[in-house]
């Protein structure tokens, strides 16, 4: 196995992408750019999960984190600017240079994905240590059943609180 296509080096590359993207999230000024960097960071962490032998968790990370939670963020950002004309505050040089950093990081992840899929040796060594989603499900509905119930109550509480706080003022408060 060549050094550049080993599991370790791919993991370190994905970890570097995750750390750099997270730094850009924390230090950014533009909200939407920071959200896009957060997506890149979550995708890089998903690649790390896949290389650690947890493909189920990697899929959940992409679907739930990068898919659902980040869409929630984007909708909230949309609502913050509602009713105002934002075009005068838009950055002037809205060319390709703005998104070059995020594109570069995402491109590194894409190359990594292609390398992982193409390399039969990596696939074979990943198959050995994978923890199947079946065993995760058995654990979830066996010893962790109470935790699953509590998590469902937590989601219900989140739903109710989100509905209560975000609804318009005129319908709600009695004051």
């Amino acid at each position, binding site marked *: 196995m060549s050094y550049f296509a080993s599991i370790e080096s791919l993991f370190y590359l994905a970890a570097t992408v995750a*750390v750099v993207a997270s*730094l850009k999230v*924390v230090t950014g000024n533009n909200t939407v750019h920071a959200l896009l960097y*957060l997506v890149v960071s979550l995708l890089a962490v998903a690649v790390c999960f896949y290389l*650690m032998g947890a493909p189920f968790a990697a899929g959940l990370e992409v679907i739930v984190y990068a898919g659902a*939670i980040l869409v929630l963020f984007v909708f909230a950002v949309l609502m913050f600017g509602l009713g105002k004309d934002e075009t005068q505050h838009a950055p002037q040089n809205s060319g390709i240079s703005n998104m070059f950093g995020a594109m570069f990081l995402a491109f590194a992840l894409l190359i990594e994905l292609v390398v992982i899929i193409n390399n039969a040796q990596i696939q074979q060594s990943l198959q050995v*240590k994978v923890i199947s989603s079946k065993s995760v499900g058995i*654990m979830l509905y066996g010893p962790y059943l109470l935790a699953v119930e509590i998590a469902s109550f937590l989601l219900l509480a989140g739903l109710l609180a989100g509905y209560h*706080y975000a609804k318009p003022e005129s319908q709600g408060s009695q004051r």
Partner: protein
Amino acid sequence: MTAIPLFHVLVLSSLLFTIGFTGVVARKNTLFILMSLEVMLNAVGVAFIGAGSAWQQADGQVMFILILTLAAAEVAVGLALLIRMQKKYRSLDIDLLNKMKG
């Protein structure tokens, strides 16, 4: 057993956690604070998955799923509160919330 040493996974996790914590402490914009919280929860997930893969147990992924539900509920409530704050103060500055009453 695993190709990636557990120590390096924990280093990655603590790096991400430190970055997220710095964001929570240092930023003024409440939306950025929520995003940094996401980074922190993600770092904890990395630690759990790494430990689960090091011992070849499914518990790590179970805890990751529970963290995922926690993050979803937290973001829903947090963003709803942010929308409320934006309506009331026309701003997302966290320092506007330093009074308990009113």
